[in-house]
């Protein structure tokens, strides 16, 4: 037991630990995206997703390829990109709010496959 | 400038001319002069061809033009003719001429009608002169859209259904053909899509099987072989007269011609191995079409099923693989093309007067419209194989060829196919008897006017062609025969 703990608290922090953290963050984001009702909540989930990817890049760079700064810069640019995305997404959410008076994702279903009674299906064979 | 290109250029020019035409007179002038020119060119080509052969030009194909088109795929714009193509061109130009005259007075959107019709004929002409797989397929597909529109806009009855059915089924055929063509090109290893070049390469037999089935069934759909014929009755019956003439006179022949030029010529080994399946289908097709025609009451349906029967005979003849039968098949192609065109022309003339095609609603028409009646009877007699008309020659040649094969399968199938001779007589005479003979019961029918001059000219041209082929068959059979040798050599390798 003690050995285990000492292992946990000695040497370098294993790469896998970072990966696990980032995966948890990533899939929490996924879960949020798939289940939340509010568009803003979904955006929050997206932030989680993107942020977890930044961790990945930084960790890989630092642990595996410290020679140059590919991951570092990728993370840097990803932050910028996510900022852009968020800006535009929030603008659009506000636009949705103006149009629909709410930000519920379920109210965005005007665009969908029309049901059978809405379209008349003409058979080829009369 | 190659002489053959005229056959594509004239329809193209007709289309351009029609596009700028702005009254009825101009439209008629353009179409008539175009079709006359086509007819003259076809006759001229026939003589040129005979001349070339007479001076000892023994090349397999004459008047070849070879322009590289898409070098990356070895696609060339390659045209040339042998005797078979020449007579197919002759047939097409005659039918185009007759069809144009038949639709002389078409009243809705004549300009568009003739534009599409010209495109349709360009496709057929192009198909018959192509020697390159790609151009062949190109022209084959080209006729699809005009057919669809011509039937859908100018047709009658359940025209939309028929137009869709025709378009989709023919497309199905083309798809299989395309698959076959791609296979032939890539598996032969030839650096060319030239038919003659490809024929020199042998494709492994196990692959040939697939390609043969694909391409033969594909062409079979276009050529209305049982059980892929179901677009024919609907398509023909809904189409306007001249399109019906064209469809059964030429379009269905594209299938048979293609089956011969592509499937049989390029895949001879598989053709030999698999012939029996299709032979059974074709023989059954003959029998089946005839019997189905017997049960129909709509004139166009009757002729459509008759066409299925006759075209079945055509495929049957191809698959017998001997010189006589194949010669017969080509004779049958021309013969059936002309006869069925005459049939549809006269049916159209009757329909335009009675506004019905149900044989039970008509009788005694011979009395009021004798010219049309006689033409119809001639078509009927020619169709049932009366000597002196082309049908006889064609059928006899096919059967003489078919009887050269002694094994049981061939014998039985030949006998089955031969029964159509009688059944044909039954349904033809039934129709003639019901529609033309007897006394007129419908008072309105007494007021009909007989054929107008354009109808007369159209019918006379067709009758002359039918009788001409029927009384001097050697001219044509020799042309076919001359050109068959390479195919047979390939087939027997």
């Amino acid at each position: 037991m003690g050995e285990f703990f000492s292992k946990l608290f000695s040497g370098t922090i294993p790469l896998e630990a970072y990966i696990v953290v980032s995966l948890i963050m990533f899939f929490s984001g996924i879960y949020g995206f798939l289940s939340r009702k509010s568009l803003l909540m979904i955006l929050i989930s997206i932030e989680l997703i993107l942020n977890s990817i930044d961790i990945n890049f930084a960790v890989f760079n630092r642990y595996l390829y410290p020679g140059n700064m590919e991951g570092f810069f990728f993370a840097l640019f990803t932050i910028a990109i996510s900022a852009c995305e968020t800006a535009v997404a929030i603008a659009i959410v506000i636009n949705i709010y103006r149009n629909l008076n709410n930000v519920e994702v379920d109210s965005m279903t005007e665009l969908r496959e029309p049901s059978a009674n809405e379209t008349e299906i003409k058979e080829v064979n009369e | 400038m190659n002489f053959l290109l005229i056959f594509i250029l004239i329809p193209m020019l007709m289309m351009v001319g029609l596009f700028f035409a702005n009254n009825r007179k101009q439209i008629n002038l353009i179409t008539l002069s175009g079709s006359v020119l086509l007819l003259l060119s076809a006759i001229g080509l026939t003589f040129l061809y005979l001349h070339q052969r007479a001076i000892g030009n023994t090349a397999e194909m004459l008047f070849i033009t070879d322009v590289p088109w898409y070098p990356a795929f070895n696609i060339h714009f390659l045209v040339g003719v042998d005797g078979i193509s020449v007579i197919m061109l002759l047939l097409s130009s005659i039918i185009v001429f007759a069809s144009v005259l038949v639709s002389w007075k078409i009243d809705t959107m004549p300009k568009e009608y003739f534009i599409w019709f010209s495109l349709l004929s360009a496709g057929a002409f192009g198909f018959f002169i192509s020697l390159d797989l790609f151009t062949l397929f190109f022209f084959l597909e080209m006729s699809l859209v005009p057919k669809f529109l011509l039937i859908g806009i100018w047709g009658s009855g359940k025209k939309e259904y028929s137009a869709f059915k025709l378009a989709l089924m023919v497309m199905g055929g083309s798809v299989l053909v395309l698959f076959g063509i791609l296979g032939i090109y890539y598996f032969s290893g030839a650096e060319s899509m030239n038919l003659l070049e490809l024929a020199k390469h042998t494709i492994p037999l196990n692959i040939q099987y697939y390609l043969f089935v694909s391409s033969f069934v594909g062409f079979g759909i276009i050529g209305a072989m049982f059980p892929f014929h179901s677009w024919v009755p609907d398509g023909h019956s809904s189409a306007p007269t001249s399109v019906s003439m064209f469809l059964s006179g030429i379009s269905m022949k594209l299938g048979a011609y293609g089956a011969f030029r592509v499937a049989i010529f390029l895949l001879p080994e598989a053709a030999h191995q698999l012939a029996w399946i299709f032979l059974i289908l074709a023989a059954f097709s003959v029998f089946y079409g005839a019997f189905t025609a017997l049960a129909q009451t709509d004139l166009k349906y009757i002729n459509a099923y008759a066409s299925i029967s006759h075209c079945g005979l055509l495929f049957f003849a191809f698959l017998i693989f001997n010189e006589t039968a194949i010669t017969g098949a080509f004779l049958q192609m021309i013969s059936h093309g002309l006869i069925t065109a005459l049939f549809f022309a006269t049916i159209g003339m009757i329909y335009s007067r009675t506004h019905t095609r149900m044989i039970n609603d008509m009788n005694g028409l011979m009395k009021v419209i004798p010219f049309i009646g006689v033409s119809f009877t001639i078509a009927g007699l020619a169709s049932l194989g009366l000597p002196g008309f082309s049908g006889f020659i064609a059928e006899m040649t096919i059967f003489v060829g078919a009887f050269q094969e002694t094994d049981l399968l061939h014998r039985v199938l030949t006998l089955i196919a031969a029964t159509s001779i009688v059944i044909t007589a039954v349904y033809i005479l039934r129709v003639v008897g019901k529609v033309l003979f007897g006394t007129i019961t419908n008072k309105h029918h007494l007021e009909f006017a007989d054929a107008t001059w354009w109808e007369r000219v159209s019918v006379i041209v067709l009758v002359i062609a039918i009788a001409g082929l029927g009384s001097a068959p050697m001219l044509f059979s020799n042309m076919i025969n001359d050109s068959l040798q390479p195919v047979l050599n390939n087939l027997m390798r």
Partner: protein
Amino acid sequence: MQYTLLILVLPLLAFVVLGLVDSRWKARTAGTIGTTVMGIVAILAYYTAWSYFTTANPGGVYQKFIPFQMEWMKFSDQLHIDLGILIDPISVMMLVVVSTVSLMVHIYSLRYMEGEKGFERYYAFLSLFSFSMLGLVVATNIFQMYIFWELVGVSSYLLIGFYYTKPEAVAASKKAFIITRFADLFFLIGIFLLSYYTRTFDFDVLNSGNATVFAGTAGLSFLGLSLMNWIMALIFIGGAGKSAMFPMHIWLPDAMEGPTPVSALIHAATMVVAGVYLVARLFPVYYFFAPEVLHGIAYIGIFTALFSAVIACTQTDIKRVLAYSTISQIGFMMVGLGVSGMGGHHGLGYMASMFHLFTHAMFKALLFLGAGSVIHAVHSNEMNKMGGLRKYLPVTHITFLIACLAIAGIPPFSGFFSKDEILSAAFEFNPYLGSLLIFIAGLTAFYMFRLYYGIFWTKEYKHEHIPHESPLAMLLPLIFLALVTVFAGFIPFGKFVTNDGADYHIHIDLVTASVSVAVAAVAIAISTIMYRKENKISDRIVSSFSVFFKIVVHKFYIDELYMFITKKIVFRLISAPIAWFDRTLVNGTINSFATVTQWTSLQIKGIQTGRVQQYAFVFLLSTLLIAALIIFI
């Protein structure tokens, strides 16, 4: 003898010209053209006959000539259809028969058909028929024969259906064409098989008796019969169809719906004997290579003869009586051929058959034309609308009587001689057969005189207007043919036509002759008693055999059987189900592709809900699935 080509070309030209002018010329012009052409043809035919029979037997054996031959269609190096003219005894004989009768009919029709709508058309068709029939008889090969065979078929169709507004005529023409066509199918198959094994269509080669020609068929048999037997039987079926042998006889009585001169020409004298001619033409082949079939022909012939003679006794339509008598007489000819041997005395049957063909053509044409004259006078075909006409139609009466006597086999009229030869040939072959034949001959005499009395004697029918004798143009042919009938028996036929070409001297077999004449006389006597004056004897006899009589009047219900087969079996059980199959199954399958596609399309629309989270769900799920698949598989 190149001029023989004109015999074919002239009628064809006449047909084309008359057919094209349609009704633009006066009727008389058209008739004159047709008749003139036929006259020229007849003269040419007589000249041909004269020059052939006088010059063509240098060694006592008639040579064959082919004055004209061209290749018309080539199937392969060996098989090709030639169109040519074969001059040999039987073809020359037929030329004479056809052109004579045709000419007579042409002349006769000038008045008989006067005023009919479509007179030009009528003459055009007559010319077409003459052309086809002449082409048939001079055919050099079996395929040429088939071609003209079909052409006579169609001209017969056109002429039977001449009155196309009459439904019966239309039906009759259709029936005639279809039944003969059905028979022709077998003929054609026979030709194909024959030509496949012999590699030729030529009569010359086929009839050479050379076994090597048929070497291909050696040892081949099917169902116990040798292949040659099959082939020749198939070919005979074709002949049987044209010649209305049982069971394909039913079209001929109906064919009487056509104009009467047409019946005289086509359905009595010429076309219907084409079957006989066909067998005669191929006689060596039958004799040497298919003897069983030849015997079969004899039996079919005699059965048909008996069968139709019985029916003839009960019919009341005079043309139908004549039609059945024609069938019966053709049966005689078939018997003659069937029992014949080869050469010399053995070839008697053949010679007799040809002889009978010749005489029968003349007297049967005469009978029909006479009947036409009667019909012309009373405007009806039914016997009960006639009676006592002898005073009004004296010429017709006499000529008709002559013909009746001839057909009844009373000497010295021509029928006696030819029939007698057949009888003796049959007796030599099989006495029972001969006896039966004599009985049939008696029946013939009986029904012919029933007819004769029915028309010219018995009680007079009250006509609305008094019947009058036909005009001269109609009487001339009658008189001419009557003369021929009277004297033709004395032609030394054996000198001209035998199956080996050699001279054969006809001698009357006194026993047979006397027996047959006696039988005929008795029959005539019975007929006289029963029908000369109106009396109840016939009715009584009828009522005592009522069931049998009913069957016979209905022609043994053969027509009904045919109707059953065509309507019920071909239409209802074959054609209609196939059509149903086509519309429902074949078409349905094709349509079902469309339907299934549409249906699937409808079923899967749930994928597209419009909810973006569900989209993302599918997105991620697919990604994981693809990843898993690609990694683990």
